[in-house]
């Protein structure tokens, strides 16, 4: 029982004082930013990254991950009480959660979403404990050529699977790769694209890009003159939160279905929690004998998506920790944070740093239990948070962003850079250029370059190394298939787009369907 011992080591690490403390801080910050509309999890994680520089890497990751899954818990609060989703994933919860508030059942909705989140998250953690070591072991035999192909595959899938123009997504990957080029080339010592700026010799920092594109741009998007948001509910008593026996019965199956959907979709690159929640909701609605209740306060309509979203969030760690390949922008950011802390991601991570991996997994359990406490008995605190006006909040966020980027390398230059990325992020958002592929390209780019060079060095410059081994042939075939598919999709949408009828992207019809 080697794994059993590892799990014990993990809990020992996660239950130590510093790990517990920072896990608590992480999930609390996460719930906080999740509750508040207009403050995203990615912005929060990137704000906190500089503060973790002095922490032990394991503790740092525990805290950063805590913000991430904590935000998923918190995000349902605002969507249920205000019909303003705290994060994109919570938009689905608002469909049935807000009607429940209008019917005076807000307490019940909040309780059910928290319990379902907990169940979904917990089951996904168990799956993660089983699958991550298996995948990592299988990946140990990979050489640089296979790694390069897997990364290319993941990057391509992650950037083309979403809604919107695939060309724009891919262009953002290329832009991310370009930004990753800035700085001194490690192999030759030549500085690339630094324009003689000393501040750029070390490259652009991940935090600067993430805070600009996700933090500042989000603020610019969220400032609206209407400040009249008030929670629609009075007092939420503990009694009003508890479901009746019949209500318990209603939520069991949707929760389990949602968990399964979330776990599978969350582990795939590019899809992530958002798509998982939409699909879980759609499946419940189709399953139901009374689909007309959906959108009017159906319990299943909040149980399934919340379970899906939390299970997806946990299972997204599987490819990230076993292969070093992140599925979405947040995972990419956590991966980047690991690298900043000197941890090399990839299948060797589990072997080289078992106490870190298992400590992180154990902290997920602890974090989920803490979140249960934070979100049920203390829900009143978060409801009160909702009345903080945004016009006090956003100047504070601007300040934290400035200090955050400054503290990376003590360069004022980075503050100017974050301002520029904020404007770029806003323009991208308005013209439907997605920001997530950019971040993925930026983080994966240098790793891909390294593997590509190493593969060709091993083969003495011959490309045949990319199709010499069965695994790489399969990967190459998958990649080619994906390329063909997306070329076909672009071609079709162009044909359909000719003057009279413009085709809607698939995702849009999906979401329409669920409303």
């Amino acid at each position: 029982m080697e794994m059993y011992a590892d799990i014990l080591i993990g809990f020992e690490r996660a239950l130590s004082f510093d790990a517990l403390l920072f896990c608590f801080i992480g999930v609390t910050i996460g719930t906080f930013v999740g509750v508040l509309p207009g403050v995203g999890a990615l912005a929060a994680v990137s704000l906190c990254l500089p503060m973790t520089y002095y922490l032990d890497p394991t503790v740092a990751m525990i805290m950063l991950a805590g913000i991430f899954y904590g935000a998923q818990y918190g995000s349902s609060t605002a969507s249920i009480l205000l019909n303003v989703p705290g994060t994109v994933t919570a938009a689905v919860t608002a469909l049935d959660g807000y009607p429940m508030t209008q019917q005076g059942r807000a307490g019940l909705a909040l309780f059910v979403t928290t319990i379902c989140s907990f169940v979904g998250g917990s089951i996904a953690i168990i799956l993660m404990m089983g699958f991550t070591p298996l995948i990592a072991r299988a990946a140990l035999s990979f050489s640089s050529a296979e790694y390069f192909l897997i990364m290319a595959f993941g990057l391509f899938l992650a950037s083309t699977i979403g809604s919107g123009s695939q060309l724009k997504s891919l262009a953002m990957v290329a832009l991310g790769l370009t930004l990753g080029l800035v700085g001194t080339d490690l192999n030759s010592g030549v500085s690339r694209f630094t324009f003689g700026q000393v501040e750029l010799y070390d490259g652009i920092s991940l935090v600067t890009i993430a805070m600009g594109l996700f933090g500042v741009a989000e603020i610019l998007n969220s400032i609206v003159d209407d400040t009249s948001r008030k929670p629609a509910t009075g007092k939420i008593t503990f009694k009003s939160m508890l479901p009746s026996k019949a209500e318990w019965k209603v939520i069991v199956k949707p929760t389990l279905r949602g968990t399964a959907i979330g776990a599978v979709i969350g582990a795939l690159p590019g899809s992530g929690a958002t798509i998982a929640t939409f699909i879980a909701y759609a499946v419940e609605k189709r399953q139901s004998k009374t689909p007309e209740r959906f959108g009017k306060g159906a319990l299943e309509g909040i149980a399934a998506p919340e379970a899906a979203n939390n299970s997806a969030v946990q299972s997204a760690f599987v490819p990230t920790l076993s292969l070093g390949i992140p599925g979405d922008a947040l995972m990419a950011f956590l991966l980047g944070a690991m690298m900043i802390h000197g941890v090399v991601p990839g299948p060797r991570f589990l072997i080289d740093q078992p106490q870190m991996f298992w400590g992180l997994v154990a902290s997920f359990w602890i974090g989920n239990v803490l979140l249960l406490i934070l979100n049920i008995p203390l829900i009143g605190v978060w409801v009160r948070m909702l009345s903080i006006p945004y016009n006090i909040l956003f100047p504070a966020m601007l300040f934290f962003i400035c200090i955050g980027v400054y503290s990376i390398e003590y360069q004022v230059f980075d503050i100017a850079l974050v301002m520029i990325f904020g404007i770029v992020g806003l323009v991208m958002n308005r013209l439907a250029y997605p920001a997530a592929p950019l971040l993925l390209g930026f983080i994966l780019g240098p790793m891909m370059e390294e593997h590509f060079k190493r593969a060709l060095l091993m083969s003495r410059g011959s490309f045949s190394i990319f199709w010499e081994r069965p695994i790489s042939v399969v990967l190459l075939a998958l990649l080619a298939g994906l390329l063909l598919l997306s070329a076909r999709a672009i071609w079709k949408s162009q044909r359909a787009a000719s003057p009279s009828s413009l085709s809607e992207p698939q995702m849009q019809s999906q979401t329409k369907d669920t409303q």
Partner: protein
Amino acid sequence: MEPQENTEPGQRSGPWEYAVAAALFLLGLYVAFEGANVGVGTLRRMGPGFLPVAVGCGLALLALGILFELRSGGRPKLDAPVRPLVMVTLSLGTFAATVAPLGLVPATLLLAFIGAFAERAMTLRRAGLTAIGLAALGYVVFILGFKLPLDAFWG
């Protein structure tokens, strides 16, 4: 933030769409050109310019594709929130310009005070109080607490 749907049925792409795609195209060309200047190397020993050339060409090609795609629809307008854009940019810029010469406290006061007016409904009193509160918080947390190498005031 999730990417929104790209093509809005029946909407013609506006000048911003074309301008951004064209800018990406030019950026791609520039990156590729600069990469070629620092040395592409050979496949066996790749130079520092190899990846820039590859990425730059890719970016330029994708941008051409986008330009082509835009003919069948896109965003007609940029629809940028002008006031927040101007005030937030100004507030961040002011902070960057003043934090070294004037110190953290004055820079924070300026940042918060200017930034707060990104919202039209902001009052002088509220902006002032927010700024003072943040400056105090920043002083305690970041100078006394985290000991950032910044002066609280000039001098």
